[in-house]
């Protein structure tokens, strides 16, 4: 080792040829992966352009449509419910939409707990049972809330009850999947710690896994409550109760001022829920 400070760059570069000979693969850009990436992006672009062509997309239609949209926005101003009675009616419908979202989300969350555990591979080790539960959950999840609403309307009749059932049906499977994945990703060491102290299988799950997944599930449920407020508006359109029905009616009869008022009501509600759930989520997860 020399005593005088060596120039770092020169010292390292001097070993360049030696390094290139010893590790040639580290000096080549990986063109195969790179070509793959470029090909994939190019392919996706091609499909997109072909799709636009197939759907007869034309810039002029968009352009003229924009003027029409501007007209409509102009007609929406200022937002107004029309009469005071109407406003109260809308407020009542909004409350109904909120109850649909709340009841649906809550029912889904409760129902998903046992299924989430059953669908987790580290809880239910039986392979066949695992696949069976996972696939059934996938099937339920693949049917959209709107379709569930149409089905439940035929079963229990028009109204908010069908709406709550629709949200519960589609969301419970989604939660169960999220939960089972959280359980599978949970740290194994606390479970081992509980088991090593003489805890049984159930107590190991109760104290080793539940405290880990509870914050994840709780924050998901809060997020879904917000998202379900919007979903509940949409399923109202097909007759599952709530503010959606009034919204679709207002659009159909071209009452643009009422339409914008209704949209505004939903917007404010969702914003309030978002702010509240953000605080609740922070309280549940705890600040680090």
């Amino acid at each position, binding site marked *: 080792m020399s005593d005088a400070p060596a120039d770092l760059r020169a010292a390292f570069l001097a070993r*360049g*040829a030696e390094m290139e000979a010893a590790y040639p693969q580290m000096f080549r850009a990986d063109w195969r992966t790179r070509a793959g990436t470029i090909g994939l992006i190019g392919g996706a672009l091609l499909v997109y352009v072909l799709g636009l062509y197939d759907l007869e997309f034309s810039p002029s239609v968009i352009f003229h449509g924009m003027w029409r949209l501007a007209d409509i926005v102009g007609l929406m101003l200022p937002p107004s419910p029309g009469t005071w009675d109407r406003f109260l009616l809308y407020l009542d419908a909004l409350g109904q939409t909120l109850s649909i979202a709340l009841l649906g989300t809550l029912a889904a969350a409760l129902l998903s707990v046992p299924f989430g555990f059953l669908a987790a591979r580290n809880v239910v080790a039986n392979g066949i049972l695992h696949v069976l539960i996972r696939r059934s959950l996938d099937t339920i999840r693949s049917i959209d809330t709107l379709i569930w609403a149409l089905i439940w309307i035929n079963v229990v009749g028009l109204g908010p009850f069908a709406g709550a059932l629709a949200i519960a049906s589609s969301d419970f499977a989604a939660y169960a999947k999220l939960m089972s994945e959280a359980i599978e990703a949970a740290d194994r060491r606390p479970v081992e710690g509980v088991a090593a102290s003489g805890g049984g299988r159930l107590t190991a799950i109760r104290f080793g896994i539940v405290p880990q997944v509870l914050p994840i599930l709780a924050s998901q449920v809060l997020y879904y409550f917000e998202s379900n407020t919007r979903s509940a508006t949409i399923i109202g359109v097909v007759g599952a109760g709530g503010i959606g029905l009034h919204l679709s009616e207002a659009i159909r009869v071209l009452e643009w001022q009422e339409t914008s008022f209704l949209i505004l009501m939903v917007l404010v509600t969702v914003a309030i829920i978002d702010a509240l759930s953000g605080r609740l989520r922070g309280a549940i997860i705890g600040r680090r």
Partner: protein
Amino acid sequence: MLVLDGVTKQFGRARAVDTVSLTIPRGQFVGVIGRSGAGKSTLLRMINRLGDPSAGRISWDGSDVTALKGRALRDWRRRCAMIFQQFNLVGRLDVLDNVLMGRLAHADGWRAMAKLWSRDDRAIAMAALAQMDIAPLAPQRAETLSGGQQQRVAICRALVQEPEIVLADEPVASLDPRSSRIVMDALSRINRHFGLTVLVNLHSLDIARTYCDRLVGMAAGKLVFDDVPAALTDGVARDLYGLEANEVLERDDAPAPESGLAVTA
């Protein structure tokens, strides 16, 4: 020469670093010691400008680095490399790419974004890895390496920046005694071989005494000791560490230096 002049960092009502003044000549191997929470990390991070001082001035070779912005700030960070306790590598990138992060300030921005590293950059990075005896690990993902190996990758990343000063924030606090020795030897080697100034935060007094030319002690944000390691008697250490003293004065598992290097100090 690194000069700190009345450097202070205020967090709300608490003073993490309290009017610290310090002059460090080029090529010195300086250990910053003190109990956890004494302000060692905050001090180091301010030198790299990961944190800005609330008051005071930091300068390198006469030019003020406290107020640098944009391009000039990035150039300063290139010249004062940082090594972290938790290594701060990108776990999903391979070892070579992690080391090449140290070439970012030298490389052309767009070529770097596309990972089109020049032959020279690759050669420098590979030679740095070879210097740390980990060149064969170059194609592996960084997260698959052991702690000691990851810290050596981090040292390589620092080296290829072609820095003038290396800041190491508790570089061995997460490592076992054997890896600690390898990492400290590596820092000692780059200090001697390339004449780089090294400023290292250490919790363990024995490592500090073994490797450093000079020790700087901090307590509650203030500079309370600045002398050669031999001047740090057990009595001074007890003042510095309080209740933790017995723990840091334990010498049994302290790493010994690489043979033949310790005497050159």
